[in-house]
């Protein structure tokens, strides 16, 4: 294949995983650049996984300060005030991640991610954002899609026992192993905005209730101008009201979004370490797939709920006329 050979050091370090995805995928990985925004527990797990896998670089954006809550699910922040005092979340996580794999360049970008221009996102092969408002998700997704090169876009959010991943790979060509031979495949992904504006009525009945519940809370936070996660159980009446409106607009039954589920999502805004490990593992593998161009990707939503232990893949796309 094209590209330089892996160095001896890389071959030695990555030996066990090269046996999973091959030297060619490892070469692509080591030349890839990843942008990460929102350093929560799930994202910390994700970063650990891709740094160990040996991507080329990881750029972290998160100017928030270290809080007690950040400590409890994010193992990248050691509970020693001397280590994190006066540093942003991104800076502290960067220090830890660097140690995991000296061959990966980990750095911090300061500033408000929504003001970063399109060309900034063009420096990356994959963009992963978390703790973002609806507006921010749409905006960053749009900027990624404006670029001629494909920038894989992911959002990830965990609320208590539940987790959600959204994937946008635009036009995505990849290969996958089918028994002995490799087949070429192609998939077309809708943008985040297009995805969530698919009328609910048009979706199959079996679509995870979590999908709708997460959209209601997302819209509620957007309408109230809140930061993600700032909504709590005290907002239940408002959220229920919005659910009613949305269900009416979409002409679906309110039972599609059970009260109990919304309550649960509002009740625990913090993360559970095991759920972080699970979602971070899946997201890590998805990004590795997208970069190496190997294997079926998730299309385009993934939901995990620790209550029943279910992991669900949902393809939420606008039905297009058959040509």
């Amino acid at each position, binding site marked *: 294949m094209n590209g330089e050979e892996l160095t001896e050091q890389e071959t030695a370090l990555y030996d066990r995983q090269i046996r999973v995805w091959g030297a060619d995928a490892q070469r692509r990985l080591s030349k890839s650049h990843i942008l990460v925004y929102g350093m929560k527990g799930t994202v910390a797990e994700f970063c650990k996984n891709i740094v160990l896998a040996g991507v080329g670089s990881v750029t972290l954006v998160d100017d928030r300060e270290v809080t007690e809550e950040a400590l409890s699910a994010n193992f990248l922040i050691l509970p020693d005030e001397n280590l994190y005092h006066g540093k942003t979340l991104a800076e502290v996580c960067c220090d830890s991640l660097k140690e995991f794999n000296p061959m990966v360049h980990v750095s911090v970008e300061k500033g408000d991610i929504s003001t970063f221009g399109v060309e900034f996102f063009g420096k990356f092969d994959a963009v992963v954002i978390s703790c973002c408002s609806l507006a921010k998700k749409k905006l960053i997704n749009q900027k990624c899609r404006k670029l001629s090169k494909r920038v894989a876009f992911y959002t990830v959010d965990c609320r208590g*026992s539940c987790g959600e991943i959204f994937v946008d790979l635009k036009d995505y060509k990849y290969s996958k192993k089918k028994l002995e031979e490799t*087949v070429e495949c192609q998939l077309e992904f809708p943008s985040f905005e297009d995805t969530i504006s698919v009328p609910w009525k048009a979706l199959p009945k079996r679509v995870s209730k979590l999908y709708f519940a997460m959209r209601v809370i997302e819209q509620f936070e957007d309408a109230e101008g809140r930061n993600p996660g700032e909504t709590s159980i005290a907002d239940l009446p408002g959220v229920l009201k919005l659910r009613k409106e949305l269900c009416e607009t979409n002409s679906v039954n309110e039972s599609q979004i059970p009260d109990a589920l919304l309550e649960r999502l509002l009740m625990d805004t913090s993360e559970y370490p095991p759920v972080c490990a699970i979602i971070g593992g899946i997201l890590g*593998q998805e990004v590795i797939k997208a970069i190496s161009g190997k294997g079926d990707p998730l299309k385009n939503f993934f939901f995990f709920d620790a209550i029943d232990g279910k992991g669900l893949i949902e393809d939420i796309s606008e039905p297009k006329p058959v040509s």
Partner: protein
Amino acid sequence: MKELNDGKPRKIKSVRPYSFTLEEDTTNFGTYVKGGIVTQVKQPRVLNFKPLRAALKDPGDFLLSDFSKFDRPPLLHIAFQALDRFICEIGRFPVARSEEDAQKFISIAGNINECLGEGGVEDINPKLLTHFAFGARAVLNPMAAMFGGIVGQEVVKACSGKFHPLFQISVFGSKLQKNLEDAKVFIVGSGALGCEFLKNVALMGVSCGSQGKLTITDDDVIEKSNLSRQFLFRDWNIGQAKSTVAASAAVSINPQLKIEALQNRVGPETEFVFNDDFWENLTVVINALDNVDARLYVDQRCLYFQKPLLESGTLGAKCNTQMVIPHLTENYGASRDPPEKQAPMCTVHSFPHNIDHCLTWARSEFEGLLEKTPAEVNAYLSNPSEYATAMRNAADAQAKDNLERILQCLEQEKCETFQDCVTWARLRFEDYFVNRVKQLTFTFPEDATTSTGAPFWSAPKRFPRPLQFSTTDPSHLQFIMAASILRAETFGIPVPDWVKNTKMLAKAVEKVIVPDFQPKEGVKIETIETDERATSLSTGSVDDAAVINELLFKLERCRNNLPSGFRMKPIQFEKDDDTNYHMDLIAGLANMRARNYSIPEVDKLKAKFIAGRIIPAIATSTAMATGLVCLELYKVLDGAHKVEDYRNTFANLALPLFSMAEPVPPKVMKHRDMSWTVWDRWILRGNPTVRELIQWLKDKGLNAYSISYGSCLLFNNVFPRHKERLDKKVVDVAREIAKEDLPPYRSHLDVVVACEDDEDNDINIPQISIYYR
């Protein structure tokens, strides 16, 4: 049918174990004579993705399956609706511990249930609802419900400055959090799974309380290829003990963690470390192992001590988890994968037909040449007279064989200079890839037939052809290089730099005089699967004794010519060092052999994969497996869960596929009105005699015919001598036969009794604990 020899792929149909039909007209083909090897290839297929509209109509894409019928209890739905209505009507949550609010809440729930009619529940369980109302404000959460505790306590306030997984207290209640903190956990293994587990339990606050204790053990040290997923290790930790490094990294994640790191492999030989006390004190065991044998051992211990065992494993992008909960689920060993297939020895020795056979042979030759023989030489040299006595006493074929190898190594093939090593390597090449093949094809010519008249060289046997050594063939030279360097290492001869220069090496090889080979008549070659032991351990004969004496005499002469204190250096195969030439030699041996038999060769990486039995591994699936296990850990530590609450998972991140199922309950054995599972033990008190034990079983309709304690047979009714044991105490017989002192703190021993019912059917009964004080 020479037309088939063009190597082009052909479509086939009606595939059976020994035949298939060609999907083409062969009427014009020539006559089939004999032989021929067919290789299966798969033709690429174009896959058509469904258009979206069709896909939406038929959403067959949900890759998940949950095999259990698990549904959140309908009562909980009602409770939540009631809570919703309560908040609407009263404008607030029920006050914790307020009876009045609870009553109101229950009556709302009752109304909702009535309105549901058919869909309602039979019993609205006021007690549960009271708890629900009491705790609604603080810890009301289905998560908590699932974890068994609708916990009616107030949220424990944070003690500031101290690191705590605070969220969990508010989510699960302080009771579960206390259980987590005081848990005595044993993590077996500190590799990839172990590192992830340590991180998770540290964050969860497991074993962080004053009563808590986490023990982790691993006898391995850190090496380079670990670092790509065992993320608690750094470059500078290479060579250090895995468990110690991981434990201190975990403490830095959570300084409250009470952890002890040990470097013992868990197994029968370390039961003095992991003794009864140790096991009895545990709350839960988490396996983080990489092999089935160790898993089976831990499973047996957990079964014996009735401890929950959380099991998981990964293979590439796949991962699986299995919960083993005393009395609720089957144990790990209850359902096993079929054992790995091993090629018969004669296939490996003389009739390989794929590269795996060649690599297996290469591994075994490597061991014989570089590890076993030098070790045997050293055994002889370090105490010649004792060694000689042992060999004379044994006086069997193996003794003779050992002595021959030592003599060969110290006499004919003794190396003093590096050139000697090159000569040795060149002659080995000739022996392995030329002479042996000539001998084999001399004994079994290409047209040889078996006793039934069928052609001897028919599939899967491949007819071998000798190689012609050439210094212009790079793989020949590479073989010579690796072999001579490793040979030099065993003799302690320094390796000159010129060996890496192919021209210089070629020159050195050309100096070697290679004697002509004449195949011999009457050489025996194993052709069918025979019991290896039967042939190799043939009884000694007078001839052997004489030969052994002569060999020892020659050896003695050799020894006097050696420098004093001379020892060889045995080399242990190490797959992971790319500079040690081990894999080069193995790949060389295997590929040259593959050439003999026209088997496709493999590159060094693939060779290492097969010969090193390397398990491909990535960080993501490991992280996911441990996350899934830790969710189950909450349930285990919360206690009192039903089997339906637990989940076993299988996931493949490459597909991606996530599926889960309830664990399988243990198999229930029944006899008369009794029933038991693998988790049960029967207890017999009062220090019984063997006869009393047998009578006790007889009363249950079980005829005991054999009693054993560990690996010692205490009683079997086929041995007349055992009759005299009938009136002895079981414990005394055990002391006598097992020659084992029972520890003073122990008041019972466990025996296994084989029984039949009155119809002579074997009945698998539980272990019996015999109390003798």
